């Protein structure tokens, strides 16, 4: 029931655009800004890679798009533009109509993200039952088709299986089937391959790219793994301690990173080049959101930092035609 649709849209028109998103967590130690003026756009048929280390706010930003920030988190600013609506200010009932139907999400750990007491077929069919009010047998039939389409062999029989009876890769395929069965325009993938082995990861990445081609999906792909991002993303946004510090087309970013943090990340990874006795490591620790340094949030670990960096915070400014970087020292 799903057929390929032509992606004739203007590649610069965003399917989803986030502008100045601010998410705050109220804690005993005071408010923590998990996302600080985060802005990005994902065009239809394209993939934006959102990369950063644990706790940098990338998952929270993604959850914010669907209005799923867990308490005590709260969106306090910014817009999430989708199809003419601002999702940040949409009432919950209307968000429910969008979630899973027009904007879908898949998660890192398919074992815990799937309900253990229902068969995968019924979990995939559920999205159709919610949004299309499809009858039970028809939804089941569509779910089986979708499971076959995401590469589950013998989908007719496997649809009756429970999550614990499937391998990790199969479970993630089932998650993808669940997310795509209503043919959404946007797919948010939060570390979808982190819990998987490399060979399975490769399969899932290929599957996601194939589904993107078929359905014209805009994908927001979140990962801590620069290698994965490099292989799947068209454009990359690098997050550090709650803010985006650099945004660029993937090729340019990996070839010539501008922000010292991005540079450090790329250099510290053992690559395919000659073996070095020591890896060039970024000094210090990932900062706690409650204890960011003054000025630039990377200034305490940055090899280029000087007084200016400790005094005021750089904003994400244009650095070339399609690039942006938040750094006082970055040479454009």
């Amino acid at each position, binding site marked *: 029931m799903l057929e390929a649709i032509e992606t004739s849209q203007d590649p610069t028109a965003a399917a989803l655009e986030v502008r100045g998103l601010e998410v705050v967590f109220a804690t005993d130690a005071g408010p923590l800004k998990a996302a600080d003026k985060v802005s990005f756009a994902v065009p239809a048929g394209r993939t934006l890679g959102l990369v950063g280390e644990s706790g940098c706010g990338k998952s929270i930003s993604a959850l914010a798009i669907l209005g799923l920030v867990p308490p005590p988190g709260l969106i306090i600013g910014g817009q999430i533009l989708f199809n003419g609506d601002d999702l940040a200010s949409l009432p919950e009932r209307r968000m*429910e109509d969008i*979630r899973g*139907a027009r904007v*879908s999400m898949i998660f890192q750990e398919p074992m815990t*993200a*799937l*309900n*253990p*007491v229902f068969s995968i077929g019924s979990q995939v069919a559920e999205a159709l039952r919610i949004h299309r009010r499809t009858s039970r047998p028809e939804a089941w039939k569509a779910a089986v088709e979708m499971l076959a389409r995401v590469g589950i062999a013998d989908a007719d029989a496997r649809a009756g299986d429970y999550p614990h009876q499937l391998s990790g890769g199969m479970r993630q395929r089932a998650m993808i089937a669940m997310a795509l069965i209503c043919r959404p325009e946007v797919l948010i993938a939060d570390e979808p391959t982190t819990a998987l082995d490399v060979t399975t990861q490769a399969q899932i990445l290929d599957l996601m790219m194939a589904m993107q081609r078929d359905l014209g999906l805009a994908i927001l792909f979140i990962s801590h793994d620069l290698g994965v991002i490099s292989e799947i993303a068209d454009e990359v946004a690098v997050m550090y301690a709650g803010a985006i510090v650099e945004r660029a087309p993937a090729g340019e970013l990996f070839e010539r990173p501008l922000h010292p943090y991005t540079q450090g990340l790329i250099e510290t990874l053992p690559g395919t080049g000659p073996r070095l006795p020591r890896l060039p490591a970024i000094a210090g620790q990932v900062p706690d959101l409650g204890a960011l340094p003054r000025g630039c949030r990377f200034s305490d670990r940055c090899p280029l930092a000087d007084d200016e960096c400790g005094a005021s915070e750089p904003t994400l400014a244009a650095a070339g035609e399609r690039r942006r970087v938040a750094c006082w020292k970055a040479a454009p």
Partner: protein
Amino acid sequence: MSRFLLHRLLQSLVVLFLMSFVIYWLMGLMPGDPIDLMISADPKITSEDAARLRALYGLDKPITERYLNWLGAAVGGDFGFSRLYAKPVPEALLPALANTVRLLGITLFLSLLIGLPAGMAAAIRPYSKTDYTINLLAFAGISLPAFWLALLLIIVFSVFLGVLPAGGVAALGGDGFWDQAKYLVLPVANLTIASVGGHTRYMRAAMIEALRQDYIRTARAKGAGPARVVLGHALRNALIPVVTIVSLDFGFLFSGALITETVFAYPGMGKLIFDAIMGNDYNLALVALLFVTLLILIGNLLADLAYAWLDPRISYR
């Protein structure tokens, strides 16, 4: 599945067997034995007579031998004679059993009917006013001494208002439903108040745990509304631990029944066991205790089956 059942049945039999020995042994430690009772009833019995009687009844033999004799007879269907009721033990037992099953059945039904939705309502918004109120009531129910509550109920409804009987059951042939039912109202109310708090708390805890699982976020990301999330996704997962705890609580429920039956003079198994122990009717006490244990074990077994039915991850091969 049948293997698992077989295993559990065997296990239950072992428990029952050990239990029967321990209780038999404990009964032997009770003050007075049948011969002492006869002596006190009939002063003409001499000490030689007593010794002969002891030999006749086998009371001079070691405890294990006496136990095995009893066990042999019991397996053969001979459970002995109840002194208190002057009937064979099964005949004394069965009416009491029927009364208790009725009391416990209604109570369990009411308690789950009230407790599970209340626990769910509390869990949906933890630390809200609703949660706070439900919690407070649940704690009050758990903390109320059942026998005191029974006294209070009698004071209010029998002594002051005089609308309900303070105890007993309808006389045989007591006509009409209400004649029967009015004797049940206070015991059922008492036992339900005593157990509903626990059920509410279990459900609340299990539901809160279920609601913070990742699959709840998945369901919401799918567009499921609050009702579907709670009733469709969380409830079944929450019921899995609740079934276990409720079944482990059968013994506790029966203890409550004993108190309730005793205070309200309701002729069920609990009162029967209490009277039998107090009245030195050891044959009856022994069999009744074993019977109650058997009932609890069957309850546990049924819960295991419900558990397997609720949780597809469990396969009792």
